[in-house]
C-alpha cells in the first residue's frame, strides 16, 4: 500500500538526521511516539511533538525510557504504528522490552542515536558502540533486524524500511543512528506518498472461532488480531503455545524460539542491504557502516589513487549480518579492513564469516569523534602488503 498523504512532507528539505528520522517515521505511518528526553536523540521527538497534532496522532513524554519502550507496545496493540527514540543510557533501560516485543511479536521501532559510553559517557559525541547491545542486549535467544543510516537522507529512507520490516516480520527493528548523523544537516528529498511503499499490518481476516493467535503463516509469521473484535486473545511474555497460552515445557520453548529465529533467518536474503563496490578484483576490502562509511569512502579514493585495488562493503543492515558476502570476499581479497567507532564489535562478525581465509584488520576508535582518513588509509596500505 502507499503512504498516507497527511504524514508525508513531500519536497526538498535541509534538515538533520534526527529530524529526517522523524519525517521517515511519519511517512511510514507512525502515529505514536513515547519518549524520554536524552541527548543526542531529542530532536526527533521534539519534531514529532510539533508535527503530530496536525497529522493526527499523539506524542507522550513518559517518566522514563522503560515506560516509553512498553507504552509503544501498548499503542501498537491499540492499533497504532509506534516507535521510541533514545540514546545509550536509555537504550540500556529498554532492553527488557525489546525481548517483550520479540516474544509477543509486536511490530515497533526502537531508535538509538548512539553516543559514547559506557554509562553517561559522551552525551554529545558520536559512537557506534551499541551494535552488539542491539543484537544481544535483551536476555534469551532471538533474532532481529538493525539498520544503520549514513546520512540524513538515509535516516528518512531507511526509517520507512524499518517500519516495513517490523510489520512484515512482526518484530522490533533497531534503528542505529549515531550522534554525528543525528546532528548533521544535509539535503533530504522526501518523495510523493504515491512513491512510498508501506507494508500494512498483518491483521487477520479470520473469524475468532477459526483463528489461532500464534498460528504461523507459511513464512512463520502469525497474523495479528485487532482488539475489540471478539478475539479475546491473550498476549504474554511467557513461553506460550499457538493459542497464546503459557506453556512452560521444553517442547513449547523449542517450537516458539525456533520459529521466532527462523522467521528472520529464512528470509535473510530479502532483508540484508549492503552497498558493494569493486569487490571482484579487490586486493583490500573496507567494510564499514554509518558515519564511518563516509570516512572510509574518502580513504578508499585515496588508496585507489595510490594504485591499490580497493573494494567497499557498506552495511545498511547491521543485523542480520551478511555472512555469505563476507565469506566470498574473504576468498579473494588479501585483507578486509573494518573501521568502526567502537573497540571492535562488527570486526568479530567479519572474523567469524571469513574464518581465517584472509587477513582481518580492525580499526577501532573509542568514540567522541570519527576516524582520521589517514588511519583507514594506512590500514588499507597495510592490508595490501603481500605477506
Amino acid at each position, binding site marked *: 500500500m502507499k503512504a498516507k498523504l497527511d504524514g508525508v512532507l513531500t519536497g526538498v528539505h535541509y534538515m538533520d538526521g534526527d529530524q529526517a528520522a522523524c519525517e521517515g517515521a511519519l511517512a511510514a505511518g507512525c502515529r505514536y511516539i513515547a519518549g524520554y528526553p536524552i541527548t543526542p536523540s531529542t530532536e526527533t521527538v521534539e519534531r514529532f511533538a510539533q508535527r503530530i497534532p496536525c497529522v493526527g496522532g499523539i506524542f507522550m513524554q513518559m517518566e522514563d525510557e522503560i515506560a516509553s519502550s512498553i507504552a509503544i*507496545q*501498548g499503542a501498537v496493540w*491499540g*492499533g497504532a504504528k509506534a516507535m521510541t527514540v533514545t540514546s545509550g543510557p536509555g537504550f540500556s533501560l529498554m532492553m527488557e522490552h525489546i525481548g517483550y516485543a520479540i516474544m509477543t511479536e509486536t511490530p515497533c521501532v526502537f531508535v538509538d542515536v548512539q553516543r559514547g559510553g559506557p554509562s553517561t559517557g559522551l552525551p554529545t559525541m558520536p559512537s557506534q558502540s551499541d551494535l552488539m547491545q542491539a543484537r544481544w542486549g535483551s536476555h534469551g535467544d532471538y533474532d532481529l533486524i538493525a539498520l544503520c543510516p549514513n546520512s540524513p537522507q538515509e535516516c528518512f529512507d531507511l526509517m520507512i524500511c524499518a517500519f516495513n520490516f517490523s510489520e512484515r516480520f512482526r518484530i522490533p527493528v533497531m534503528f542505529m543512528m549515531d550522534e554525528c548523523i543525528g546532528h548533521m544537516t544535509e539535503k533530504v528529498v522526501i518523495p510523493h506518498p504515491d512513491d512510498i511503499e508501506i507494508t500494512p*499490518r498483518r491483521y487477520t481476516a479470520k473469524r475468532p472461532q477459526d483463528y489461532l493467535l500464534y498460528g504461523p503463516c507459511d513464512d512463520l509469521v502469525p497474523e495479528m488480531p485487532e*482488539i475489540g473484535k471478539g478475539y*479475546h486473545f491473550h498476549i504474554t511474555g511467557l513461553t506460550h503455545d499457538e493459542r497464546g497460552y503459557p506453556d512452560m515445557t521444553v517442547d513449547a520453548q523449542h517450537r516458539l524460539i525456533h520459529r521466532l529465529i527462523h522467521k528472520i533467518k529464512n528470509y535473510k536474503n530479502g532483508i540484508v542491504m549492503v552497498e558493494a563496490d569493486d569487490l571482484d578484483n579487490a586486493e583490500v576490502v573496507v567494510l564499514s557502516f554509518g558515519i564511518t562509511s563516509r570516512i572510509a569512502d574518502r580513504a578508499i579514493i585515496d588508496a585507489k589513487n595510490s594504485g591499490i585495488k580497493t573494494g567497499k562493503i557498506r552495511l545498511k543492515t547491521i543485523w542480520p549480518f551478511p555472512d555469505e558476502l563476507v565469506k566470498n570476499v574473504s576468498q579473494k581479497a588479501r585483507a578486509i579492513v573494518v573501521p568502526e567507532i567502537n573497540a571492535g564489535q562488527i570486526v568479530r562478525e567479519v572474523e567469524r564469516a571469513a574464518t581465517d581465509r584472509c587477513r582481518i584488520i580492525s580499526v577501532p576508535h573509542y568514540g567522541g569523534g570519527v576516524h582520521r582518513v589517514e588511519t583507514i588509509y594506512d590500514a588499507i596500505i597495510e592490508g595490501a602488503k603481500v605477506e
Partner: protein
Amino acid sequence: MSKEKHPLSDYLREDRMPHMWCPGCGIGIAVSAFLNALKQSRYGQDDVVLVSGIGCAGRVAGYVKLDSFHTTHGRAIPFAEGLKAASPKTKVVVFSGEGDLMSIGGNHFIHAGRKNMSITILCVNNLNYAMTGGQVSPTTPAKAITATAPFGSFCQPFNLPFIAEAAGAVYVARWTVFHVRQLQKAILEAIHKKGMSFVEIISPCPTLYERRNQMGTALSRMNFYRENTVIKNGASTKDAVMDLDKPFIVGKFVDDDSKLTYLEAMNEYYDTTFSCDANYHTYTGSKI
C-alpha cells in the same frame, strides 16, 4: 451427567482452569468481583482490555476472556497508557499486585496519576511478594516476617490510598476480599470514572504471609478482616495506614472525576492552539 455452568463462564477462559492460585488466596474473589462488576457495567466484553504485570495477580490476564495482556514486571501501567492513547474508546483496566504496581512500577503509578490517564487500576495487596516466595513488599507492615525479612521488616510500609490520592487519582477505594459486595460496587464505580481510578484489594496470602506470621488459615484471616476493619467512607487517606495485626480502615476515600483526563486536556488545549489550522482534527485515536 449434566455439568452446571459457572455464572462467569462467558468471562473466563475455562480451558485454562484450574488456575494456579493457592487454596485460600483472595485473587480469585477479586477476579469474580471484577467480572461481576463488568457484567453489570455499560461495557461489553469487546469494549474492555485487561493489562497485568508480573506476579500472582499478574496472572489474572491469563484467565479472563477479554483481550488481555500479561506484560513485563512493573510495566502494566505504561503499556495500558500507550494502548489507551492509541485507542481512546477502549476501557483499559490494569489488574496486578502491590509489588508489581507500587515497587518496580511505583514511578509509573504516580505519573499515571499526574497525567490522569483514563485507566482503572485494581491492585491486589497481599502484603508480600507471593510468586517469588514471600519477600518484603512495599506494603509489608513493620515487624511482619517475610523471606527477606526473617526477623521482621523494620521499614514503614506504603499507605496505598494516600499515595494514590497524592498522585492525583480521581477515585480511591480500599476493600478486603471479605467485603465482596462493597468491592464489586467499588470496581463498578471505578471503571466508570474518567481519569485514573484506583481500588486497593486487601487479600490474604495464606501460603506465605499468614503462615510465616502465624496468622492462621485463610478463613481465620477472613474473620480478622471482618472484625478488624472499620468502614469509613470519606475518611482521610492519611488514616489508611496498615499496622501489623491492628484494625485498619476500608471504604471509598476519594470520588471526584471532574478534572480533565490526559486526552481531554490535550484536545482542549490543541483545539484552541490549532483552531485556524485546516489540517488539525481533535484527536480520537491513532489506529492505522
